[in-house]
């Protein structure tokens, strides 16, 4: 059996200790710093560090608030690639595979897992570069399918329900003012016209009181 692999992160880079208010002023409590080891399902540690670094250039931590790093996007992507989506469980994958005009959609044979493995080969040492150099590398691969998946998955990891291991502490939802699965807006839908109405976010597990399983956690 394969040895278990881990991504080691400082707790300060996780949402759990990030104090965040609805006016988008975030502050990291670095005094609580400790190291966390998160088991990986698909990436090895060096791959996870590259993905975490690249995702955080796509959705950076900056003066507008936390980003992909605090939301745990790399862990989200790891879980997705390890699961049915990563191996193209839902796509029609019978051949022959042919080139096609873009209006017919992605026609390639490569699964998301294969696209990441191949794409990451070209980003060796990426996580140790300065941010400007990292951006330069990303600009070179901007038109690749790997980058478009990485960008899409970064958005997904920022804003999907925390059951999927991204959006830690609903940090992405707090950033944009999305309240999650609220069961009723009946009394509010025709009020607050033109004024921001920002209920405190709740996650699916909080809203339902049940241990909802995400599809990537296969039995």
């Amino acid at each position: 059996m394969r040895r278990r692999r881990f991504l080691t992160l400082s707790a300060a880079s996780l949402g759990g200790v990030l104090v965040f208010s609805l006016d988008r002023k975030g502050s990291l409590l670095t005094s609580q710093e400790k190291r966390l080891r998160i088991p990986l399902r698909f990436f090895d540690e060096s791959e996870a560090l590259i993905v975490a670094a690249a995702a955080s250039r796509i959705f950076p931590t900056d003066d507008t608030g936390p980003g992909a790093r605090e939301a745990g996007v790399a862990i989200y992507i790891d879980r997705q690639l390890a699961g049915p989506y990563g191996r193209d469980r839902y796509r029609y994958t019978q051949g022959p595979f042919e080139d096609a005009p873009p209006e017919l959609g992605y026609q390639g044979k490569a699964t998301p897992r294969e696209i990441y493995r191949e794409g990451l080969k070209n980003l060796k040492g990426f996580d140790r570069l300065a941010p400007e150099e990292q951006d330069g590398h990303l600009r070179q691969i901007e038109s690749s399918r790997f980058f478009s998946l990485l960008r899409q998955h970064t958005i997904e990891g920022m804003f999907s329900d925390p059951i999927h291991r991204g959006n830690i502490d609903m940090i992405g939802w707090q950033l944009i003012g999305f309240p999650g699965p609220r069961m009723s807006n009946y009394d509010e839908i025709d009020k607050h016209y033109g004024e921001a109405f920002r209920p405190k976010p709740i996650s699916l597990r909080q809203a339902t009181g049940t241990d909802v399983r995400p599809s990537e956690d296969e039995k």
Partner: protein
Amino acid sequence: MKTLPPVDVVIVGGGWTGLLMAKELGSRTALSVVVLERGGQRKTENYSSDMDELDYAIRMHMMQDLSQETVTFRHGPHQRALPLRQHGCFLPGTGVGGAGEHWSAWFPRFVPDNFELLSRTLEKYGPRKLPEDHSIQDWGITYDDLEPHYTRAELLLGISGKAGNLRGTRIDGGNIFEGWRSAEYPTPPTKIPYVASLFGDAAKSLGYHPYPIPAATTSVSFTNSDGVTRPGCTYCGFCSLFGCMIGAKAQPTNTLLPVIQKRKNVSIRTGTWVRRINRAAANGNGNVTGVTYVDSSGEEIFQPAALTILASWTLNNTRLFLLSGLGESYDPASGKGNVGRNLTHQILSAATLFFERPLNRFMGSAAAGLRVSDWDGDVFDHTHLPFLRGGSFAVVHIAEGPIASFGILPPSVKTRWGSDWKKAGLYYYDRTARLGFSGEHLAYKGNYMDLDPTYKDRLGDPLLRMTLDWRDNERHMSEFAAEKAVEIARAMGAKEIIPSPTLRNYDATRYQSTHLQGGTIMGSSPDRSVVNPLLQHWQSSNLFVLGGSTIPQNASANPTATILALTYRTADALVDRYLKHPGPLA
């Protein structure tokens, strides 16, 4: 192959039409009825834990599993078709309830003249106005024939709305361009969210006639004549692409299933994949004998039945005809054959709008909003326009989740990632709205379906092949719609506006609604149609076909109301006429 004991009626497909027919036959007769559904069971109780944008709206877990079967696509008859490997331009459902579970629950009627599209257009504009390669035709029934059944369907689902034409009397605030109605909607209009209210005010200020979208996301608690009660909508925002967690959005599982489950003569078999409609080759009367399916264990099973009702989605109805060798496959070169002809979709376009003020878009239902039909059908004169027909504009808070909508930015923002992009994304996330237009798609000789010569499904059966492209009529109409949308958007106070790109070639990656029509169309003559106006197969009188595949051409509006009205009409014909004297009804 195992052969089961015969049943009176086998229904292929457990969506809106199949379950409505099962309910009607199960309640009004003592016949034994079996519904075969390829997918699994679905229940309202499942849906609260499904309020997850990623698994449901992005990974599309309510949709047909394309790894098992998809369709192939090409723009013209001389191209090689390739499989649509992921969901895009339409979203077929699966499981009990079918696409009626994840639908957006709009319930408008069709404009009356679409039922006589060919003769009305010729009468008004003459033959030269019609596109050269059109294949539009009359349905063989009129709006008046269907009106009572529309009313029944609205009562079944408790549709919320406001009438604009009650027996010929125009009523302000409703759709004054609609066909006559014999009754007001069963429930009052939905609440109207902010952007939709801006749309309504703007449309009114320009002299147009906004009205509440006829919605099956019912505004108040409603009990129908079957005694089925559904609660009012809570505008949670998890609506289109989701099942409703409280059953406020009418779905087959919350509206029809409670009745069916009480009927001992009706059973639903899930996990059953129908491969063929069986024909009685030897007996010579052209009748069908039942269907062959593969169950979830992989065993092939023949289910004999006195009456077969094909009630799956447009594409699968057509494919089953083709796989079973029922009737002649349409050949666009010779014009011979009817199975597969008149494939139409629907135009979905208009504009993306950016506002200064936050919109609270997380609240809403897919059908809670306002609509404008001043350019629907032939409401406006087309003599000096470069196209025929039209469509309706609407604004709802469809409440697309943050994954789908983060990063939709005005043209003034040039970046796609990084700090500037993030900053713009955070600002515009709740300041972005869509003004939608759904327009009529004419039928053409070159848009059709047949079997693909190369690609197969999981069982080795050929995939359905779609040959489909836009023509100038659609391109001109969508340009016209974009101009109108920009005019309305400006009046709404939008700061930046992106009109939908002009239609060029049909783009299978761009969602155009799940409203596909044609393949086994109805008509008044077997020369130009597959089923008669009561949806009975012209050749096999014990085979009936329900759903979008019987509609001769798209009519701009969402088709579910029309499809359910047609199903009621066929149910009446079966119970009142066919079962007493089996044989051709027309």
